[in-house]
């Protein structure tokens, strides 16, 4: 029922993209949350340096960043030198690259959200017998809802769209590392504009639906912080 321009390969790419974006977002949250918590609370003198380093990958063009990651992951790179696996051209490699590149989009909104939770609120929770984890889940999380929403939106959307890094360390293997963005890009490069339009439209439509639902759910949860 799909128009001719979209082949099964494109659908595989779409599926892979969603999987990659989802996994990346989850990993980003898992890594970004403690990092953001640390940055929001610490008075360490390394804070400034860490903050800067987190934002740094952004200034390199994704393909160049991908190139350096290739050097890192390649046979002459430190990872394989230390007996690690060859991660280039694997899904895991894609996740690593995307995580690295999208980290600031997750860390910064979370850090802001965490920093704006009043010390008094946390103290109140502690005095009501909530331990650190408990406080995190019952106070920090709900009060950082908007920060998480932003982190998820930016992290997910950016992983869907960004392909410089993925292109570089993915090797464009159909079904394994070929994502939808590369597929669309190919169509444009190959002057197959019709397919590019259709795929772009499909991606935009899907993404709009996802974003819309995400914001709608958030609106329902009715954040209270005025």
């Amino acid at each position, binding site marked *: 029922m799909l128009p001719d321009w979209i082949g099964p390969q494109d659908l595989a790419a779409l599926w892979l993209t969603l999987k990659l974006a989802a996994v990346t977002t989850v990993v980003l949250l898992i890594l970004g949350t403690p990092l953001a918590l640390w940055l929001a609370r610490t008075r360490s003198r390394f804070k400034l340096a860490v903050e800067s380093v987190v934002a740094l990958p952004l200034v390199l063009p994704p*393909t160049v960043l991908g*190139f350096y990651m*290739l*050097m890192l*992951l*390649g*046979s*002459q*790179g430190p990872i*394989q030198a230390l007996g690690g696996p*060859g991660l*280039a*051209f694997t899904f895991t490699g894609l996740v690593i690259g995307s995580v690295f590149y999208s980290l600031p989009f997750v860390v910064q909104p979370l850090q802001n959200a965490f920093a704006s939770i009043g010390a008094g609120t946390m103290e109140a929770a502690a005095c009501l017998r909530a331990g650190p984890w408990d406080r995190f889940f019952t106070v920090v999380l709900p009060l950082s809802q908007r920060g998480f929403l932003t982190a998820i939106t930016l992290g997910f959307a950016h992983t869907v769209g960004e392909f410089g890094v993925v*292109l*570089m*360390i993915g*090797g*464009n*293997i*159909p079904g*394994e590392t070929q994502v939808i963005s*590369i597929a669309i*890009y*190919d169509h*444009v*490069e*190959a*002057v197959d504009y019709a397919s590019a339009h259709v795929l772009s439209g499909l991606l935009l439509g899907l993404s709009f639906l996802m974003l819309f639902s995400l914001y709608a759910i958030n609106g329902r949860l009715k954040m209270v912080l005025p």
Partner: protein
Amino acid sequence: AELRVAVAANFNATLERLAEAYGPTHEVAFSISSGSSGKHFAQIRQGAPFDLFFSADDRRSADLVASGHAVADSRFVYAEGLLALWSPDPERIPEDAVAFLNKTDAPRIAIANPRVAPYGAAAEAVMASYGITPDPGRLVTGQSIGQAFNFVTTGNTEVGFVALSQLITHERQYGPGSRWIPAAESYPPIVQEAVLLRAARDRQGARAFLDWVRESEAARAIIQSDGYRLPSPAANRDHRDR
């Protein structure tokens, strides 16, 4: 006067050498924009301010002529790309490369994306005519021939089908690796065409440079030394009439 040239990424370095040779004596300054030909094609159709276009193939140039964005009689083949299987490791590629690639434990092979890059299409053709059939998971595709080359130099794939011009540049700096050069007949020629764009149709300097590249010994020597094959002027004439 300044000549604005859009050039396929794989020919960028060579064009710079050509410009260096030509510019000072003819008092022409060059502004060179390197990129993928697909991108340049779209940009030229949207009015990009280029005078000359050195495409990576002969399709875009033909299309631009057809759509009136380029001057028909200016089209010519400035180089034919040559393909090589290459590894930076001098020991890696054996005499019998075909058997090596067909072994069950053969390494991953980097190629350029056949859908967009002529070198990729050529690599596919070579494999087909030699009966090389790697399973799809071992074929790693770079978006451009430059990326395919990067896969090899960084050691993420041990070998790759790259442009001869690339490995010449690389070996000049880092020393020889190992290579296998398939027969030119085993793949359709990687014809790279240049064309004069409409905006510059009346600029003598632009036409003069194109003529220089096509005719002069100096230019042909530079192109050849960078690992391209040169078409005979006759072939070029035929080609233009096609």
